[in-house]
């Protein structure tokens, strides 16, 4: 254990721990990419990482800045066309874990990355869903990583970009979905899991130094805490050094010559 880490580092490392050698992950840019690669470089060397650009089984030495960086293709087992990626690999049910993030998230793991305000007269036009609508329903399970803030953790979404547990309970099953949906939410403050029945996200562990008030103040709905609320194990030296080395290599690669 080490005493010196940031909430962001804790979030990334907590996410990496949830991954195993047998997982096939659909990786997004940012925290998911860092988490997956930390897992690959520590306890899960056999994990399969897939980016939606078509790169299967990548092992990037530095974190990509886009989902289609050359590094991903160069280190991949194979690179397929994007229609094949979405048809055979995602829709085909071959991805065990998909990572998603959100502009707005509700207590049931539903996600909005499309628009703030009315769709036709938006206050803020966000990038949109990209791969998320089908990642949310086709992957075996969904992990969400996101920094807590009341702006993002909302009582009600402005737009359902991708479906989590809907209104909770058996809503997924009622829509014919056979995948598990969001099973893990990892923030800069806590680790959350859905209640087995209601599917409402419940804080199951808080990171070191975090209080219940801090979790509640950054969340727009009334937080449920687990009866057996734990402290998230802090990053180990290995986890932290692996993450930091990865980030340093990434910075060096990007600074080393113009723009790469």
């Amino acid at each position: 254990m080490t005493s010196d880490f940031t909430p962001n580092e804790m979030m990334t490392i907590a996410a990496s721990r949830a991954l195993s050698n047998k997982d096939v992950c659909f990786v997004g840019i940012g925290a998911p990419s860092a988490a997956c690669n930390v897992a690959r470089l520590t306890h899960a060397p056999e994990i399969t990482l897939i980016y939606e650009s078509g790169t299967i089984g990548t092992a990037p030495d530095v974190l990509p800045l886009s989902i289609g960086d050359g590094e991903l293709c160069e280190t991949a087992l194979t690179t397929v066309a994007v229609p094949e990626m979405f048809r055979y690999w995602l829709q085909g049910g071959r991805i065990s874990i998909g990572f998603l993030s959100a502009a707005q998230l509700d207590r049931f793991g539903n996600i909005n990355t499309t628009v703030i305000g009315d769709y036709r007269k938006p206050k803020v036009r966000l990038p949109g869903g990209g791969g998320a609508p089908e990642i949310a329903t086709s992957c075996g399970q969904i992990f969400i990583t996101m920094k807590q803030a009341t702006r993002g953790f909302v009582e009600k979404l402005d737009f359902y970009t991708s479906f989590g547990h809907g209104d909770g309970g058996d809503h997924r099953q009622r829509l014919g979905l056979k995948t598990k949906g969001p099973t893990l939410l990892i923030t800069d403050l806590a680790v959350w899991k859905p209640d087995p029945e209601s599917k409402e996200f419940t804080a199951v562990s808080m990171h070191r130094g975090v209080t219940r008030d801090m979790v509640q103040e950054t969340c727009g709905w009334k937080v449920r805490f687990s009866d057996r609320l734990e402290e998230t194990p802090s990053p180990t030296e290995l986890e932290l050094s692996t993450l930091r080395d990865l980030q340093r290599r990434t910075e060096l690669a990007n600074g080393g010559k113009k723009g790469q």
Partner: protein
Amino acid sequence: MAKFQSLPEAVAENLHDGDIAAFEGFTHLIPHAAAHEAIRQGRKDLTLIRMTPDIIYDQMIGMGMAKKVVFSYAGNPGVGLLRRMRDAIENGWPRSIETLEHSHAAMANAYEAGAAGLPCAVFRGYVGADLPKVNPEIRSVTCPFTGEKLAAVPAHRPDVALIHAQKASRRGDILIEGIIGVQKEVALAARRVVVTVEEIVDDFDDLHPNLCILPHWTIASVAHVPGGAHPSYTQGYYARDNAAYLLWDKISADRALFTEWMQKNVLDAGPEVFAARVEGL
């Protein structure tokens, strides 16, 4: 039957006002030089299709060329939002644009269906999502064997596709390598295809048999534009200019700065500037 032409000729011959156009390339091989030529030629009322509108459509929208944009992710990859596209949607500057929004899966399937000559694509998608409520082109068919309701979207059949690739042979066959995205599908879905290439080689005789190749008889025009994907990249030739993507976030944040930048770097330039831009990448 591929014609070898200058980029201005190729664009003038194949891209017309009011066309449905798709400039494709999934992070890799984005046809920046072709987009800049279209901007210089002042095409207007275009319907622009593209999975990730990206800098090129931000520029074309900011220059008022787009009537409608069909897309699935309107972001500056790895950076943030597309500020010119937002300004058009939120404030109608320099003109209001219509948008038709899909998921990546829908867009990829729609290109696939276009290449396959089908009227629509059928896939498992949009379950529980709100997009079908705001996009009337998301419908459904029912599997006649299981009763499952599947999503259906119209096939993309652009009037013209513009793509960038590594190599053309002297016959006009096109080789695309690395992250091949939807390049083959958009080319086969389109009525006319314009390709900019890094290099022209004698033939493809010694290539592996299973590479991504478009035969010359599927291509309308080939233009030799080294560096033509910059600041996107061409595997085997030059790397992605991430600094330029970051810089775009600043340029596009301000209408005046944008206008000035476009004048200097696009309107007053030509396809030949791209080769210099990728030196050292």
